[in-house]
Structures are given as structure tokens and as C-alpha cells.
């Protein structure tokens, strides 16, 4: 008989571990040098801690009882535990606070390469820093980390989670069910479904086509140049972030007005890391200015997390492309 391991988990043997460790060591140095001290929190949290945050797409999948009957969850990300940590251990410490982490998170995903139910995340959180300065700092650390990891061709998509909801507001789409359905289609990348939902709103033709065209806009700074009025606020925010970036970082940015993350707690800038050698995003991040308030310490915040396994896959894919 062969003993199995749970679906979506796997063993890591020395050759792979050596490569992963070398990569994370280089990334950790970047984080530490930028002033982000490493923290670790329990893999298990009380269910109520995650219930406070609107984690929607990535809510915890694994639950256990402890000996007193409390419901515990395996953390589905590190942002929520760090929000809890800030509100308890750093209650009276003046912001800004900078933390980094290398820790596993757990989600009920469909297992495949680069998509494990237990996965290592490397990330930072910057607590108490406003946009655009805080966002620009985090994007800068992100790019430096990707570079020391060894990626050459990565790009970072930059969008704004508030952009599309603001557009719906301005066009008078207030019905909650409809908004929810539209935002779900958008998050799923179902542009045909989006067209059907928008068509059912009965808007003027130019308003309807705005709702369909905006999420398709992605590219260089020219994307932000000719935007209609309702988008001006979000566009101003993105321009301000971009203006703060050094050339080596700014060159990596793709503006993406269709970027809406499934994660519920993002409030402003959102970003996603891509590499042309790998068909799956390597990391995500963004501003979550309301999350800390859920834990009694209202502070603006921004961070990102890299999926270390995906980073490693992208790295080997880039290497393979270079040699063939």
C-alpha cells in the first residue's frame, strides 16, 4: 500500500527546495533592506478573524475544531492575520509600519501545477501610508523583488478597484443585484456575459458602450489620456502613482482598467504580476484602506503577495525560452 497525501498538496525534495530557498533568500534581503521586518503568524486563526474581512473569492476552505469546540480556519492569506497583528501588537505604535512575510496559505482551489491548496506566499504590507506615496513604494519593492528573483520580462498590471463601481454610480446603476452580477462577470473575465447584463440595463447607447469598452482598456500611459469624466478620479490616482515611480519601475507598469480583483477588501489601486513565459498571474496586490478599521485600528494600507511556486515556474520558463 502507498500512503497518499491530501489533494492539492505535495512534497518538496532537495533540488527544488535549494532553488526555492535561494530565491526566497534573495527576495527576503530586498524586503529587509527596504525596512520590512519579517513576521510570522499562526497558520490557524479563529474563524471570526477571517469573517471580519470581506475575503469573498479567497475565503478559508479548511476548518477544524479545537478541544474547546472553537471553529478555527487555516489562513487563506496573510493580509488578514497581519491586520489583526497590527491592531493588537502595535496598538499604540505610530504608523507607518512595514512588515514582510514568507508563509503558507491554504485555499480550496482546483489543484494543478502552480495552483496548490497549500502554497507559499512572499509579500509585504505597508500600514499607515497613503496613496500615491505608499502605493509607489510597494510597487518599487515589488519590482526589485522580482528582479533579484531573476525574472527579466515581468510586467505589473495596475488598475483601480474603485473605478468600475464609480462608473456604475455615475451612470445611475444602483440596483444591488445587478451591480453584483456585472462585477462578477467582470471578475470572471466573461465579457459576453457582461455585454448581456449591460444590454439589460436599458442605458443610452454611449453609456452602455462605455461600460463595455472601459474594462478592455489596457496598455501604456496612453490608456489614461482620453478618459471620460466619471473615470477621471481613478485615472488621476493612477497617474499620481505612476509619476512617483522611478523609470525602471514605471516601465514595467501596464495600466489596466479592467483589473478588478476577486478579493473583496481592495479599495483603490490593485495590481497583478505577469510574465510572458507563464500563462498565470504570479502575484497580486493593492490598497485595502478599510480593512484595518475592521480590527479597530483605522489605517490606510497597501501590500502585495507573490506566489513563490509560480515565481519559480515563471523563472524556469524564462530560462527555457532563452535557451531554445
Amino acid at each position, binding site marked *: 500500500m502507498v500512503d497518499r497525501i491530501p489533494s492539492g498538496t505535495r512534497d518538496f525534495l532537495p533540488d527544488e527546495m535549494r532553488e526555492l530557498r535561494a530565491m526566497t533568500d534573495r527576495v527576503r534581503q530586498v524586503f529587509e533592506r527596504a525596512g520590512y521586518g519579517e513576521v510570522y503568524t499562526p497558520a490557524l486563526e479563529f474563524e471570526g478573524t477571517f469573517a471580519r474581512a470581506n475575503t469573498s473569492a479567497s475565503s478559508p476552505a479548511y476548518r477544524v475544531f479545537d478541544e474547546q469546540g472553537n471553529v478555527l480556519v487555516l489562513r487563506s492569506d496573510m493580509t488578514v492575520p497581519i491586520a489583526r497583528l497590527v491592531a493588537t501588537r502595535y496598538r499604540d505604535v505610530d504608523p507607518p509600519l512595514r512588515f514582510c512575510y514568507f508563509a503558507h496559505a491554504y485555499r480550496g482551489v*482546483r489543484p494543478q501545477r502552480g495552483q496548490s491548496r497549500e502554497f507559499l506566499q512572499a509579500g509585504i504590507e505597508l500600514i499607515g501610508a497613503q496613496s500615491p506615496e505608499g502605493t509607489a513604494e510597494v510597487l518599487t519593492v515589488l519590482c526589485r523583488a522580482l528582479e533579484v528573483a531573476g525574472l527579466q520580462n515581468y*510586467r505589473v*498590471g495596475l488598475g483601480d478597484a474603485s473605478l468600475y463601481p464609480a462608473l456604475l454610480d455615475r451612470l445611475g446603476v444602483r440596483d444591488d443585484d445587478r451591480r453584483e452580477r456585472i462585477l462578477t462577470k467582470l471578475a*470572471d*473575465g*466573461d*465579457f*459576453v*456575459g457582461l*455585454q448581456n447584463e449591460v444590454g439589460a440595463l436599458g442605458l443610452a447607447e454611449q453609456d452602455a458602450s462605455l461600460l463595455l469598452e472601459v474594462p*478592455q482598456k*489596457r*496598455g501604456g500611459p496612453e490608456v489614461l489620456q482620453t478618459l471620460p469624466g466619471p473615470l477621471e478620479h481613478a485615472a488621476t490616482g493612477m497617474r499620481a502613482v505612476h509619476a512617483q515611480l522611478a523609470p525602471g519601475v514605471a516601465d514595467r507598469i*501596464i495600466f*489596466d482598467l479592467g483589473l478588478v480583483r476577486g478579493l473583496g477588501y481592495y479599495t483603490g489601486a490593485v495590481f*497583478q504580476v*505577469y*510574465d*510572458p513565459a*507563464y*500563462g*498565470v*498571474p504570479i502575484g497580486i496586490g493593492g490598497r485595502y484602506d478599510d480593512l484595518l478599521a475592521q480590527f479597530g485600528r483605522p489605517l490606510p494600507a497597501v501590500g502585495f503577495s507573490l506566489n513563490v511556486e509560480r515565481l519559480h515556474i515563471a523563472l524556469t520558463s524564462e530560462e527555457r525560452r532563452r535557451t531554445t
Partner: protein
Amino acid sequence: MTELRIAVPRGALFHRTLDLLDRLGIATREVRENERRLLFEDAGIITMRPADVLTYVEAGAADLGITGKDVLLEQPEREVYELVDLDYGHCRMVLATVAGEDPAAEALRRLGVMRIATKYPRIASRHFLETGRQAEIVEVKGSVELAPLTGLVEGIVDLTASGATLRENGLVEREEIAQSSARLIANPVSHKLKAPAIDALLERLHAM
């Protein structure tokens, strides 16, 4: 044009898809003349069984692909963008039973559960869940029409275009569950990193 790699299904959508690609300026003659070859680097086309298109596009092994909405509905967790309804390959997902008094309704009334054969277990389960009926889904790989004729099940959930196959086997449509047609899908990362090439293709498509 070779900047984009397109996954083309060798199946019911094959010839209409090649016609479409021709009109978009992608040369498909080589594909039409080579039944067995799978990879056409010059045209940027790869051909495969319809069920595999989602797999290739999701992983980024193809940037774009053409697949039926039925396949997308059956596998909603796949991370692909659904860009355009191509308006061909129309068909419908239906619940069908043998003609005459509805045996599925009778089974539901007297036995509490109906047995349904299908190649689309998730679409079928979702439909009966949403309509509040208990159904036991029997997954079959081959001709679904056989299952109700032999007493294996009381009904089937299957795709139909003209309804001819149903009629020939003495089956009648009882409910429509979903409509399907060919869709252009994209890998999410390609959609961001190859935006100019994809948008140029979409523009030509919309201009047609």
C-alpha cells in the same frame, strides 16, 4: 500574425472556425490540407479535440481559442476570458425524455428522485438544484440517447442543434436549460501582455 497562437477545435466547430480565421486574414489552407498535423507554426494555429481547448488556453499554451459556451458552462472554474460570442455553432442544452407521459416527472413524484444521463454532469446538477428537484446524475461517455430507451434513466440532459437525433430515438424535449454558441476565449495573461495584437484581431472581427 504569428504573434498569437490560436487553439482551434477539430469537431463540429472546425470548418466554421477556419472560415472565420480566413476572413480575419489568417491563412488556413495548410490546416485544411493536413488532417493529421496538429501544429501550424506559420499560421499560429494549433488544432485539438474540442474538450482540450480550455486546457491549452488556461495554461497559456495558446493565447486564444474557440470553444462552445456549453464547454465553458460545464467548467466554470477555468481561468479564461470569454471575449466574443462568434454567433455560429448554435445549439441548446435540453432536458429530454421518451415521448408520451413524462417518465421523469413520474419518477420524481413517486420515487422522489429522477435518474438523468448526461455528458454534462455539472450543468445538469446545477439546473436541477436551481429548480428544486432531486436528480441522480448518471455520467455517460457515448450516445446519451440510448440511456432512457433501455431503462437506465428517465431522462437525459444533452446538446441539440436541430433536434433530429432526439426525434429519431423517440425522445422529446421537455425543458431548455441553456443556449450555446461558439465563443472566442483568451488566456488572461496574454490578454494583458499581447493587448495590441488581440485588440487588432477583435477590431477586424467586429468590422466583419
